[in-house]
């Protein structure tokens, strides 16, 4: 569940600042939070997002194609953390949260 927790945590933060999040932005945020330079693999990321959407932890909606065209880029699939996702994140085992916190502190 580590990657799921990380996605829920980073996704929640991105959602607060931008109202939602999309794949590449999430990949950058995950790398920053882990103190890594390399971004998560496409397959790993989108398989996890797919799995979490199926399980109701995330909801997703495709961006309007016209607005994406105006912005000069392909449309993004925007994700949000659902209530169930927030509940799962809040109920994250303490050991996981502590381990993640220690890892990040050691990288800081």
């Amino acid at each position: 569940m580590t990657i799921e927790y990380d996605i829920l945590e980073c996704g929640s933060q991105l959602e607060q600042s931008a109202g939602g999040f999309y794949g590449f932005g999430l990949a950058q945020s995950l790398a920053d939070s882990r103190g890594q330079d390399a971004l998560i693999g496409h397959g790993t990321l989108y398989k996890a997002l797919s799995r979490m959407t199926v399980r109701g932890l995330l909801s997703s909606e495709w961006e309007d194609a016209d607005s994406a065209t105006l912005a000069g880029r392909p449309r993004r699939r925007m994700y949000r953390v659902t209530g169930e996702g927030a509940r799962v994140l809040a109920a994250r085992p303490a050991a996981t949260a502590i381990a993640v916190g220690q890892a990040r502190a050691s990288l800081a």
Partner: protein
Amino acid sequence: MTNDRQSGAMRAAARVSSWAEFYTFGLPDDVRNERLDEVRSDLHEQVTSADGHSSDRSLARRILGRSIRGIVADVSWRRDQLRGLAPRPLSKPMRVVVALAVAAGVAVSSMLFVSSETASSNASLAEVQVGDLEYQVRSEMLFVVPLSVQFAEEVKEVGSDPNYTAVLPQEREGVATEWNNLRVLLSQRASRGRSWNRALPPTSIRSWPAGSAP
């Protein structure tokens, strides 16, 4: 970012897009199109968001590296979609097989040479041309191994499933075409002698047989 600096990254992105077309081949249209759109959006964002200090070659390697690191998950996701299952982890034997294939891909990509030619900054992925022989050889090698492993595993796991049987001939032809492409490229390289930057007339990376292109 200049056009020259972007071209190698664009070609890497096009190769990754081509890989996504393969591993989504034969899946339901909605599933396939959603994955392709999402991957292409991601590739576009990565290419256009690169900071000015990243070299084109570095960015190309980062893009290919992300693809390689996700190949196991790509294969696993495809298998689950073919079986109509929710995504789940690969079995241990399959992980070993795919990991070996990925290791081979990484070994090849470590030698990857990305030149800075062709591909304007606003070209779509489908328009990107691959003109460098070494790049073509190595990128073909990079993907043909996991492609073949994936195909063999599919035949073994779901080869008797009617949904899969329908797409089997086209998929077999696609794999055969990729191997033939590699054979032709190696033959061309052998006839020209080993070189790091030997230009060929631009060749589209999309090389599926007519009528079976995904």
